[in-house]
C-alpha cells in the first residue's frame, strides 16, 4: 500500500488561487496586457480559475489560452510510453503581452522549459511569468516560479497528486504519495 498524506484541501486550493490572482494584479500594476496560458492538463483549469478570480477583482476581461507542451519535450525519444499530443488553443497574439504560464506542480522545471520554447514559437511576449499551485523543489534547470500557492518539501521518490473538480470529478485536494 502506498501511503497518502493530504497537504491541501479544497478551501486551501481556493485561497491559494485567490491570493495568486491578487499577486498577479499587484505585480503587474493591473492586468493591462496580461494574459493567462494554462499548461495541459491541470494547468488549464487553474488558469481558468485565475481568469475568473482576476476578472472578478478588476472587472475587466483577460484572455486565457491552452498550451500542450508534448511536442517540445526533451525526453520524447527516451520514453517508451508516448504522450498523446493535444491541441494548443491560444487564439490571441501573445506578442508584447505579459504571459502568465499556469501549471499545477513545479518540479524539475523541464515542463516549463518546454512551455517557454513553445510560447516563443507563437510570438514574442514582453514578459513571461510563472504561476504554480505547488512548488515541490528538485529543480534540474534554472527556473523559478513568480507565484506559488504552496511550497512543500518532498523527497524525489515521492509523488504529488493534484485533483481538481473539473477534471477529476472530486473536490480539490492535493496528496503526497510515498514512492514505490
Amino acid at each position, binding site marked *: 500500500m502506498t501511503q497518502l498524506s493530504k497537504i491541501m484541501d479544497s478551501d486551501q486550493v481556493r485561497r491559494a488561487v485567490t491570493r495568486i490572482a491578487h499577486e498577479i494584479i499587484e505585480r503587474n500594476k493591473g492586468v493591462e496586457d496580461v494574459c493567462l496560458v494554462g499548461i495541459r492538463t491541470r494547468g488549464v483549469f487553474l488558469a481558468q480559475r485565475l481568469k475568473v478570480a482576476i476578472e472578478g477583482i478588476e472587472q475587466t476581461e483577460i484572455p486565457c489560452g491552452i498550451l500542450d507542451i*508534448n*511536442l517540445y519535450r526533451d525526453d520524447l*525519444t527516451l520514453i*517508451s510510453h508516448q504522450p498523446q*499530443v493535444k491541441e*494548443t488553443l491560444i487564439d490571441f497574439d501573445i506578442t508584447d503581452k505579459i504571459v502568465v504560464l499556469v501549471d499545477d506542480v513545479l518540479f524539475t522545471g523541464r515542463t516549463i522549459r518546454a512551455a517557454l520554447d513553445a510560447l516563443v514559437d507563437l510570438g514574442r511576449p514582453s514578459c513571461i511569468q510563472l504561476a504554480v499551485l505547488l512548488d515541490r523543489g528538485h529543480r534540474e534547470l534554472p527556473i523559478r516560479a513568480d507565484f506559488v500557492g504552496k511550497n512543500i518539501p518532498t523527497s524525489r521518490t515521492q509523488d504529488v497528486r493534484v485533483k481538481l473538480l473539473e477534471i477529476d470529478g472530486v473536490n480539490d485536494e492535493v496528496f503526497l504519495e510515498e514512492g514505490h
Partner: protein
Amino acid sequence: MAEWTQKHLLDLDDVTREEIELVIETARSFKEVSSREVKKVPALRGKTVALLFFEPSTRTRVSFELAAKRLSADTLSIAANVSSMTKGETVLDMALNIEAMNVDAMVVRHQASGVPQILAQGTNTVIVNAGDGCRAHPTQALLDVFTMVDKLGSLDGKKVTIVGDILHSRVARSNISALTTMGAHVTVCGPGTLMPAGIAQMGVDVTTNIERALDGADVVMGLRMQKERQQELFLPSITEYVREFCITSERLKKARPNALVMHPGPMNRGVEIAADVADGVQSVILEQVTNGIAVRMAVLYLLLGRKAD
C-alpha cells in the same frame, strides 16, 4: 485513448478504430501548428526521413516532405529516374544502403504492390507506405477520414460513395478499410470492367448505377481514371465513361444536400468529376490537401516520436 503500437504503416488492414482515432486526434493538433506563423515544432529534431519515390508524385511527396520538416526532421528525397535503380540495383539493396546512413524512416512509393512490406522485412528502418501499386495508400485514406470526421463528426452509419476506377485504386482499398473500421457504409460504383473481383467481400455495396450509388450519400469521392495503369482496354471510350459515371452537379442532387465532394487528386476535370462540382461549395478537395500534411505529421510523430524498440 489507445497507444500507437505498430512499427510501420504499411496498410490499414490491421489498424484498429482506436488507432485511427488517435491519428485523427493527433492530426488536429498538428493542423494548428501549420496555421502558425512559425510552422515548426521540435518533436522530431535530429531524425532523418528519406523519401523514396519510385513512381511520379508531386502532392504526396511534397506533403510528406513538409510534414517531416514541420516536425524538424531532416529530409532527403530520391526519385527513381535519377537513382542507381537505373544502374540495376534492387530496391532492397538501395534501401539497405540508405539505412546504412542512419536514416530513421523511409517513406516509400512504388508502382509494384508489396514493396513497402519487402523493405519492412528486409531493413530495420521504420517504413511508411506512400502508395504501392494497386494495393494500399494508408495516409491518403487517413487524411480522407480525418477530413470527413472534421466535417461530419462521427462516421457511424454515414454513407460514403466511391466512384470510378476501383480496380486500380489503392486509395479505394485503403479507404474501404478505414471507413468500414470507422463504422461508415461504403458503396463503390464504376464500370464492371474496373471493379475488382470479390470486392463485395470487403463489406461494401457494389453497383454500376451512379444514381443509385449517390442516392442519400453523405460523402461522394471521385477517383482518377488511371490511364497509366490500364494496359488493356477496360473501357470502350472515355466519352462513354463520362456519360455513365462522371460526377455532375445534376447527379450530385441525388446525394444529401450538404454531401461532401472529395477527390484524392490529381483530377481529370470533365472525366471523373465535372469542373463545377470540383470547384463547388460542397467540394473539400483542397482541404484534403491541407489536412494531408497534418495527418502525415501525426503518422511520422506516432512512428518516430518515441523510444526506438
